[in-house]
């Protein structure tokens, strides 16, 4: 890269070292301002709100609502709210299905794509990545219609075989049905991340093993998977964070089934408390609990896997 020297005047050049220290801060300023305004301040504001409460004083139609300090009242209410806890329970069932299946399929497809001489690799890679372009809400809409007995192709096949409709959106099938939407949307992206890191493994590594007679299965298990472990940790982390914030999918499915309550997952309950019940303090406390929970889960995951996933240093 060449830089035109003639445009620089000597005077400018001399004055530069004096303000050199300010340069990185100048580049960081736009991000910094936005970070403070849209991340830091809302976090602090949520914390503040979570310790406040609206108290009605006076009583009767002339009671005045005023804001007061509430201490840990909202947090106690959050942790003793059976619906909020049940929401976490449902989230756990959903996550136990969605996260391992997404990662398992993503790893399987990535390893298959990386096999030498595999057929239809290009087509499959693109096809499996396509759902990433479909917003979660629209994916839920598509799958919702595929689940709905009156429009489901599965039921059409079953009915023609003389078997009655299968209800997907009720009973025990509901969790796999909702998880399936997340799996469908998530496999492709995670597959590509794992696949690109597989491509980053030097070829000599498998060549050497292959010459020594190792099967592709051995190569995958003993060479490839250990080497892409950091990518697996990262994709696992993002799947987990995604699971804790699931909202759009069950919301979209609600009109199609009676089984999804208004408070089916924690974020739905937070939304209801804030907007339908106007209890902002409780919603703020629940948000803080959810955010801290996510942070703790992420850190625990990173600790367990012992990977410096976001390796700082250099």
């Amino acid at each position, binding site marked *: 890269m060449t830089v035109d020297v003639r445009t620089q005047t000597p005077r400018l050049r001399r004055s530069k070292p004096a303000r050199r220290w300010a340069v990185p801060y100048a580049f960081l300023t736009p991000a910094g301002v936005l970070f403070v305004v849209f991340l830091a301040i809302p976090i602090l504001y949520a914390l503040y709100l979570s310790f406040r409460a609206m108290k009605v004083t006076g009583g009767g139609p002339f009671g005045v609502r005023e804001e007061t300090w509430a201490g840990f009242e909202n947090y106690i209410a959050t942790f003793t709210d059976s619906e909020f806890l049940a929401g976490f329970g449902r989230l756990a069932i959903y996550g136990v299905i969605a996260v391992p299946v997404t990662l398992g399929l993503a790893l399987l497809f990535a390893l298959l794509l990386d096999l030498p001489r595999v057929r239809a690799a290009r087509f499959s890679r693109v096809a499996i990545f396509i*759902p990433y372009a479909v917003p979660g809400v629209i994916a839920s*809409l598509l799958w919702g219609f595929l689940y709905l007995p009156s429009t489901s192709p599965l039921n059409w096949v079953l009915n023609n075989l003389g078997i009655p409709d299968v209800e997907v959106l009720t009973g025990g099938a509901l969790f796999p049905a909702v998880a399936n939407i997340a799996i469908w949307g998530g496999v492709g992206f995670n597959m590509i991340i794992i696949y690109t890191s597989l491509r980053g493994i030097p070829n000599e590594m498998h060549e050497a093993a292959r010459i020594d007679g190792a099967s592709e299965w051995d190569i995958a298990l003993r060479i490839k998977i250990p080497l892409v472990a950091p990518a697996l940790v990262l994709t696992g982390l993002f799947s987990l964070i995604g699971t804790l914030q699931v909202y759009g999918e069950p919301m979209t499915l609600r009109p199609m089934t009676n089984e999804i309550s208004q408070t089916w997952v924690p974020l739905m309950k937070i939304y209801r408390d804030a907007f339908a019940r106007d209890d902002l303090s409780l919603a703020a406390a629940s948000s803080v609990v959810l955010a801290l929970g996510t942070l703790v889960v992420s850190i625990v995951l990173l600790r367990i896997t012992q990977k410096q996933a976001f390796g700082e240093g250099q």
Partner: protein
Amino acid sequence: MTAATETSSSVRIVRDSGRHEQRRRAARRPLVGSAVLLLGAVYCLVPVLWVLVASTKSNSELFTTLTFLPGTGLLQNISDLFSYGGGLFGLWAWNSLIFAGFGAVLSTLISTMAGYALAKFQFPGRQVWFYAILAGVLLPGITLAIPQYLLMSKIGLAGSYWSVLLPCLISPFGIFLARVYASSAIPSETMEAARIDGAGDVRIFTSVALPMMVPGMVTIFLLQFVGIWNNFLLPFIMLSDESKYPLTVGLYTLLSKGSGTPSLYSLAIIGAAVSIIPLIIMMLVLQRYWRLDLVSGGLKG
């Protein structure tokens, strides 16, 4: 790296097994592999194909004819869709494009500048910034939507385009990726050489660093574009005026109204079909610019 030692030991283990049989298995395996891959492809394509087929059906055909048989109502559905609510669907599509387009361009630039500063400069507070951004990556942004809404309504911006656009501009993950990319793509010697030649810091950034960061920027742009396009909760909370909705929120309201009136079902279906086509085309066209190794490469540090 520990991986190197691991590899050599695994090679030693497999050496003992019969070489001939291993060869044969290795040559045969990809067929099963291809079959599994094709199954995955079918799984991923079926819902998309279904919505494309279903969008050709008129309302009565939707519930009566074979699901994968095209219907006769495509043109009627399209004209119904674009005339719904006096052209609301067109507005939603336009809004999605504005939010995702402007949001992604600006946040890519902001992330690139911040990533460049964090990667290529030593300064007091650098470590603090890095951990703040890392915490931002791990924190579910969506849990901030309610306090963001409250603050927006305090300054009178709730319900405006800005209330959706501005929070999208800060992307901790984008900054993180930009930092990873800048530290590997921009040699410090090149910057130093430009400095000795008398280039100012702005000039070094625009003529030396930026061109080297383009592949990383494209990836950040695409990730942000898809992320904003797919966002639901933020616009759902911030906006109340139907004409400002993006596609996700618009189609959601269409569907939830449709539960009472099944005639809206076919509108929701054609709406879903029309709104996923442009994004799928964009992904297919731009797929060779995706540098997702950037995402996994960030782990090697």
